Every structure is written in C-alpha cells, then in structure tokens.
C-alpha cells in the first residue's frame, strides 16, 4: 500500500535530524529545560501524525518529566535520542 504522506516524509526526516542535533547540543542542566520542553512538545505533536507513535510518546515522556523544572533522567532522554536517530537515518 502506498504511503499517502510520502511527499512530506523527507522533510520530517530532516526535522528529526535537526531536533536530534538541538537536543544533543543541550547540556543537561535546569537552564536548558525550557528549550528541551519546547522541542519535545512540538516533536510529540508532529511525530505521531507521521505514524511515528513511539517517537511521539518518547517526546511526550521527556516533556512531561521536564515540566518539573529539572533535567529528566538520562534514560528517558536516551530513549528519545535513539528513536530520533532511527527516524532521521532510516535503514542505518
């Protein structure tokens, strides 16, 4: 079955690569939590619409954890980074 969203997918992959770069560039401290929340909030919204439900949930989990004001546990962020890598570089 053909993918109706195929024309939009390259842009989504590029976005995942950009978000991966942005999150990786943030040092894990409280001052960067608002930036992390913004990236993850947007990503959670768009990823699920592209069928990347795992990525959407992982982004929501990081956003939710970050809403406390502290940098989230390493495991939560690492899970998101792994999924972002997988979306940004499919087939690798």
């Amino acid at each position, binding site marked *: 079955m053909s993918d*109706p*969203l195929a024309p939009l997918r390259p*842009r989504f992959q590029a976005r995942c690569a950009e978000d991966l770069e942005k999150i990786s560039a943030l040092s894990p401290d409280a001052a960067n939590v608002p930036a992390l929340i913004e990236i993850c*909030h947007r990503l959670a*919204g*768009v990823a699920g*619409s592209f069928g990347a*439900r795992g990525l*959407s949930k992982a982004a*929501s989990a990081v956003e939710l954890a970050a809403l406390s004001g502290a940098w989230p546990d390493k495991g939560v962020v690492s899970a998101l980074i792994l999924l972002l890598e997988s979306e940004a570089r499919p087939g690798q």
Partner: protein
Amino acid sequence: VGESEQYRHFYLFDIGFGKTSAYLQGDLAADPCWRIVGRDGDLGLTALMDILYADDDQDIRDLVSFSFELDATARVQTVSSGDEALEALRARSYDAVLLDVMMPDLDGPGVLTRMKEGLAPETPVIFVTARALPEERRRYFAMGATDVITKPFDPLTLVAKVRSALKRPG
C-alpha cells in the same frame, strides 16, 4: 449562461450523472464557495468549509494543508502566528478557526480572546494541541472554544473531525 435580477451571472449546469441530473444556479463570481459534489451517483450542493489554521510549526502546517487537499469540499489557509491569524480575520471571514495553543507572542487562547472581544465573536474556534489535560480542556471550553483536537492527529481524518465538531450543537 445568462443574467437574472437575483444574480448578476446566471449559470445553469445540466449534468447527466447516472439516473440523476442536477443544476446549480447562483452568482458564482460573488460566492465561489459552492461546488457540486457527487455522492454515490447522486449530486448535491455542498458548502465549501473554509478554515483558517494558525500554527508556528511548519511541519504541522504542511500536514494540515495536505489533509485539506484530500477533501474537495474543504479548504484551508494556514498562518504561522497568532498575529497573522488576527490579520487574516480582519481581511475576511472563515467558517472556523483552528488554533495551536502554544505559539510565541500571541498564543491560541489570546487569539480566541481577541475574536470574542469583537473581531469574529461568532466564528467557531477549535484548539489543536499536544497538551490537552482535562483541566486545560475545561478552560478552553469555558473561554468559548467549540472543540479541542489533540495532537498528534491523523492527517487522513482531520477534515472529517473538524466537520463533525462544527456540526455538533454548541
């Protein structure tokens, strides 16, 4: 094609379509928001659903445009900020406005407030948000929102969801 007292331009389309023939008359030059839409061999007049959508995320705007391209009876104009939404609303009216909640500067609730204050008080507003906790939903409805659509949305069913929300009694 001719003219009448009621309409500047009078169009008569006689369309053979299976067992049905139908015609459409009206001033299409002044009101282009009507189309003939075939449904199961029948023809009916369906009003074009005319939507304004505001979201600061380009990928979401692309997805929304894609969703509306799938439906010939709906169209969308997308803008990237709350201020642009107000500008669009000053220029003309829409059947409904869809607003992202979190936008820099003027956010979705801010746009709704300005609309209710007089810019477009009767135009239905639907919030589209990734954060729709029950207390937030209650707040949006208390502000006068018609509905809240949760992100992520399915781009293949978004237009149907909007249409359904607008048909529900307020």
